[in-house]
């Protein structure tokens, strides 16, 4: 049994909230650079240039790349041999969010009640997903998620007869319907299988993968590539101004599922595929 203090969790979460909002990953920057070369639409190219300039300003000045600094989505990979001392783990996560969003001048976007409640004033509570894993370490990932792209996400309860074609159709329709709203170029996280809530969580987890790193499963990697090609034929383009770069990547996660079901979830993210991790 290894002990980790709740103070260490607070500090880690506070830093991760700020880093995730200030610094875009090199993986995303590389793909954006490549996309600039591939984009043929002049307004589309101009958008990608502005996004790249924005990324540099945000990092240089330590300001958030987007004013929507998101719901603080926090993944905890908690080793089963870890003992957290000094306080309740989720309280520590929320205290870290409170400090990170206040110290970092990040926007507080959480309403205390979903039906017109007051702003909680510190961006708490975080949405926390805990996975118990082997070992004596705690890995914390903070993935702030903006509202504009989250609103364009969808879950479809397909049935087995729909098959791979049905899944692809659902993903394409979701992206097409989203159009310019989620600030394309987007990153598309897809969850296939499990059940209703598992598919949605898989789609969110898919967004955490390094950009354009293919699925280890050959058939799924092929589907990712095929969907990326099809999405980029839609013509939506950067910001919806028309162009060939509508998505930067499609990531798919799968899970076994019931003989009667084929759940599919599509979690749309803007280019700001923000996430930062640390292992304590």
């Amino acid at each position: 049994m290894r002990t980790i203090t709740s103070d260490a969790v607070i500090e880690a979460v506070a830093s991760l909230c700020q880093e995730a909002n200030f610094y875009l990953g090199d993986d995303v920057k590389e793909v954006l650079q490549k996309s600039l070369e591939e984009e043929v639409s002049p307004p589309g190219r101009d958008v990608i240039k502005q996004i790249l300039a924005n990324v540099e300003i945000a990092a240089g000045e330590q300001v958030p790349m987007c004013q929507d600094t998101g719901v603080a989505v926090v993944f905890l990979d908690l080793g089963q041999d870890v003992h957290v001392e000094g306080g309740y783990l989720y309280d520590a996560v929320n205290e870290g969010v409170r400090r990170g969003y206040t110290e970092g001048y990040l926007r507080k976007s959480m309403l205390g009640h979903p039906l017109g409640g007051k702003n909680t004033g510190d961006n708490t509570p975080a949405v926390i997903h805990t996975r118990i894993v082997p070992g004596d370490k705690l890995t914390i990932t903070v993935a702030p998620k903006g509202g504009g792209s989250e609103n364009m996400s969808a879950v479809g309860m397909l049935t087995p007869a729909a098959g791979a074609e049905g899944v692809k159709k659902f993903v394409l329709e979701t992206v097409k319907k989203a159009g310019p709203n989620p600030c394309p170029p987007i990153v598309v996280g897809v969850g296939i299988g499990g059940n209703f809530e598992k598919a949605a969580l898989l789609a969110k987890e898919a967004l955490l993968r390094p950009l354009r790193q293919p699925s280890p499963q050959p058939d799924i990697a092929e589907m990712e590539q095929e969907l990326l090609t099809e999405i980029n034929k839609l013509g939506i383009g950067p910001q919806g101004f028309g162009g060939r770069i509508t998505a930067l990547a499609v990531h798919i996660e799968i899970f076994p599922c019931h003989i009667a079901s084929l759940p599919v979830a599509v979690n749309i993210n803007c280019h700001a595929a923000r996430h930062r991790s640390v292992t304590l």
Partner: protein
Amino acid sequence: MADKYVSPPLTDADVEGLVAGDQVYITGVIYAARDSAHKKLVELLNRGEELPVDLRGQIIYYVGPSPAKPGRPIGSAGPTTSGRMDPYTPGLIAETGLKGMIGKGSRSAAVKEAIIKHKAVYLAAVGGAGALIARSIKKAEVVAYPELGPEALQRLEVENLPAIVVNDCHGADLYEGGMRKYALP
């Protein structure tokens, strides 16, 4: 499609000169308002009461900025999704003389009709470029609803704030036109 420079208040002639796809640079005063501020403004209109600001000829920017760091006028300040303001926009255009809206994403048929009928314009700023856009904002002050935090109604002084015309008063739509132009079979 061309570069255009405008300063509110906008006249009918100013708006008629803006065409879908034009890159527009705005200098002067604009107003920041999003969901909750819109709801409050329209409630005042419905009760026949005076609004906290005169919107005739003005531009509303759909933005909920992040807090300003010390010494800065504003934090990151990119556009939010405009569709959420659709229920309020036709009324604001018709009753206050509002001429322009800046946001991102598609508008409803009713908003597009109001834009044509009352000669207004809908522009998009680059969503996700909030740190870059903030450089065009020189001053920000809350003029109403401070209790709404990031959703307060703010008066912004801007210099060459960049935006692109999406819906013009002649009925053109950049989103529809752009998608048609670049879609592949």
